[in-house]
């Protein structure tokens, strides 16, 4: 992005018809550590990379429960994200109070998007600097949405945001068509593998990632350390099996081979993916 004279105010259009401040806000999301979301027919899983600013500190919390049927993962300015969480929680609880029923996630994301839009059209405000991956349920089933600082919202089968999210997105793009028939546990394993792609120089451990699940029969909750570690361990086991079972494919064809890895099969895809070009 180049600096120019039309980017001082969010309420100033550029001659090319762009709002640079809004675009800069979306850049801010890319600075945050990664968050991943994916869904199957029955569940939605969110995953986050937990980055600690130093060895002495704890990591920033990025997975939040909004209601029994809704949760978010965020990337970007987490402080802005917390404020939006508070808003979302209060909308959900208001709906519960008046209607004694959960607020459908598809309606909540519209309310969040409308709130974000306000900040793109007031000279005394700035856009929210956070991207939200919203996982939730409504009458039509499970949904995954992405709320953007621009005030737009999109629905996804699977998505990743934040720094080095492209690697996770590539993992997801190759496999998303198989996700809808995945079981809950398979979906969690996919989420962990996707998040792994976004890590740099780090082993996947329960201390540097987080997983949250929501389903029709399962309230939104964040997996505790032990459960998370056992999922990560099973990833390792599969890796070992895959290494023993099949000889290594030549790098050029592995990409094609990945295309339909778990078609119909009940086991998880080969964990040994071709090393990506970063």
């Amino acid at each position: 992005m180049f600096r120019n004279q039309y980017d001082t105010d969010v309420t100033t259009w550029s001659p090319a018809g762009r709002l640079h401040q809004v675009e800069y806000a979306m850049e801010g999301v890319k600075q945050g550590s990664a968050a991943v979301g994916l869904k199957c027919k029955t569940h939605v899983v969110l995953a986050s990379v937990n980055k600690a600013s130093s060895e002495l500190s704890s990591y920033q919390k990025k997975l939040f429960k909004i209601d029994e049927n809704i949760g978010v993962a965020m990337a970007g300015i987490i402080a802005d994200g917390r404020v939006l969480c508070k808003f979302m929680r209060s909308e959900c609880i208001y709906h519960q109070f008046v209607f004694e029923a959960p607020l459908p996630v598809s309606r909540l994301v519209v309310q969040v998007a409308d709130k974000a839009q306000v900040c793109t059209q007031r000279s005394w405000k700035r856009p929210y600097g956070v991207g939200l991956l919203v996982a939730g349920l409504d009458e039509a089933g499970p949904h995954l949405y992405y709320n953007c600082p621009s005030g737009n919202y999109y629905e996804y089968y699977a998505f990743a945001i934040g720094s080095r999210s492209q690697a996770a997105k590539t993992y997801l793009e190759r496999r998303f068509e198989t996700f809808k028939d995945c079981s809950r546990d398979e979906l969690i394993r996919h989420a962990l593998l996707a998040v792994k792609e976004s890590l740099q120089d780090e082993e996947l451990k329960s201390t540097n990632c987080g997983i949250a699940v929501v389903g029709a029969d399962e309230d939104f909750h964040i997996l505790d350390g032990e459960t998370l570690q056992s999922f990560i361990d099973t990833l390792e086991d599969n890796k070992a099996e895959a290494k023993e079972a099949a000889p290594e494919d030549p790098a050029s064809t592995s990409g094609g081979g990945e295309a339909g890895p778990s078609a119909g099969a009940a086991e998880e895809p080969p964990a040994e993916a071709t090393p990506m070009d970063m």
Partner: protein
Amino acid sequence: MEHAIEAFKREESLGARHSGAAAASDGKIHIERTQYPYVTGSSVLGIKYKDGILLAADMAASYGSTKRYKSFQRLKPVGKHAVIGASGEMSDFQQISTMLDELTLRDQMWDDSNTLGPHEIHSYLNRIMYQRRNKFDPLWNNIILGGVKNGKKYLGVVSMIGVHFEDDHVATGFGQHLARPELRKQWRADMTLEEGVRLLEKCLLVLYYRDRSSINKYQIAKVTEEGVTISSPFAIETNWDLEAFQNPTKNAEGSW
């Protein structure tokens, strides 16, 4: 009880319009909240049956002891899945109808696959009634709400003070006293449409004989998974030759 109401009328600190009293230019306190109903509807009955819900009400709106309006529709569909019936002050019922129309319209305008079901509408109604009661300015109605959504049948009541509950058969007004005992005796969960209508007609007949604010002109509303239908008005055959009606003043000489 009277004491409290009198004291309340004298209360000057209720300045705001919503609190119900305002000092007017003549210096007197003018109460601007509902104190008693004027144009009233009588009982409403509701039962669950095999395929859904049936509601029944007559078409009278009385002005004191006069049967002022005899084609007043006291049953109304709400959205796609529910029907509402009200007794009490009919202008308040019309107000509530407007609110519910707005609610269901906004629900439709989301244009998504979600809809407000009978349970949600009942909860919303309850909130309205209770909050008005807290302001000492109630909507003077006793309301029955019935509906079917995703195969689940729902039948609930809300009163003017916000008392609310669900049941398999409900009634308002005189129906609570005259119809419910019959419903308790005869109601079954697997009644067919014909059996349900017959049971309601039996109760409506009792109400016509004994409730002086009722008229012999009824509507029955049916809600099933397919939707809501409200029948055109009909009458029930009466028989005034029954022994109970002979010599009515037998035990009360001098009355008429």
